[in-house]
């Protein structure tokens, strides 16, 4: 899911990097000191999660945890995703440096949609967690497929989406497990739960 340098045209990459810096400012400003340790821990989890890969259908897929980041951090997830991707690129050569903005926007979009889904109070909590986990992978995959297509790559798009759908299902299960765990030990760790009334049945 990490796009390497040389795939997307340079002007598009530069524009995406400028846009990413703008989004970092908008989403990261006025962060309260209490939020920062949570951002750091989530960033560390995102950084490490990309190392956990699954060989599948002749390719290699990995965890993203973007949905979980969206649930935990809300809009603060974008600077965290950007930082994690920066270090993945610098340390593991995982994704390009020039395409950092494109990758951050792709994966940040997944976290953003996950945040939106998580904020739908009408849906049961666990369904929200599942859908957020799915969206955290599906949205970036759709964006990446579109970008690949526009750049003239990736003719096997149907297969790619099928592979990422499987990855999204795994991710949704992990997100659900993590949310269940947080609800049991510390419900307020997941964004927005302070304002909601979650019954004991939902938590148990």
């Amino acid at each position, binding site marked *: 899911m990490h796009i390497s340098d040389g795939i997307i045209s340079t002007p598009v990459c530069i524009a995406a990097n400028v846009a990413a810096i703008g989004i970092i400012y908008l989403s990261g400003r006025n962060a309260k000191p209490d939020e920062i340790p949570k951002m750091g821990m989530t960033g*560390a989890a995102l950084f490490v999660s990309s190392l956990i890969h699954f060989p599948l259908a002749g390719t*290699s897929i990995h965890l993203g945890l973007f949905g979980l980041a969206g649930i935990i951090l809300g809009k603060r997830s974008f600077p965290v995703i950007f930082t994690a991707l920066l270090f993945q690129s610098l340390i593991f050569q995982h994704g390009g440096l020039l395409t950092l903005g494109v990758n951050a926007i792709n994966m940040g979009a997944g976290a953003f949609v996950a945040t939106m889904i998580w904020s739908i109070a009408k849906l049961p909590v666990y369904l929200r967690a599942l859908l957020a986990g799915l969206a955290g992978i599906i949205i970036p995959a759709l964006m990446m497929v579109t970008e690949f297509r526009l750049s003239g*790559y990736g003719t096997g798009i149907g297969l790619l989406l099928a592979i990422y759908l499987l990855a999204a299902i795994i991710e949704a299960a992990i997100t659900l497990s993590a949310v269940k765990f947080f609800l049991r030990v510390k419900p307020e760790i997941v964004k927005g739960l302070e304002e909601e009334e979650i019954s004991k049945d939902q938590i148990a």
Partner: protein
Amino acid sequence: MKIPILFVVMALTLYSMEAGAHGLLTDVRLQAPSVVIRTQFSEAQPVIDATVTVFAPASTEVVWQSARTDRTGSFAFLPDAAGEWIFIVDDQKGHAKKLTITVPADFISTAELPTGNAANKPDEMVSRRERVYQTITGLALIFGITAIFYGVRSRQTALVKPDQK
């Protein structure tokens, strides 16, 4: 509150020691008269059946050759002209890489040349131990930045509060 998260992060870190980073890596060697490209994912799994599209130096618009990597993730090609050849490796599943390989003029005429050259530096194929060190370095950097950011924001908040009173 932080202990469970720390536990999850540590568990993921430990797991990652057994896993490997994922990404499309290439190693290019000029072995006269052929250019050999070896591909693999970072966890040493060869990129099998990936498409390789070759563009000649004279024409970057027209495809010179299309091929696929073999079961070892390798592809060999015989250039017939000096210059910058472009190779696009694409596994059709979201991993692609563009390589620009400079073929020197004497490569075409001579039978033997040293393998590799400065312009075609291969990607690092790192060992698991190096990967662990890299992971620890990355985590240390992230926690360090978090601590600095936390310190700065706490200080700013502490400075603002007395004024408000």
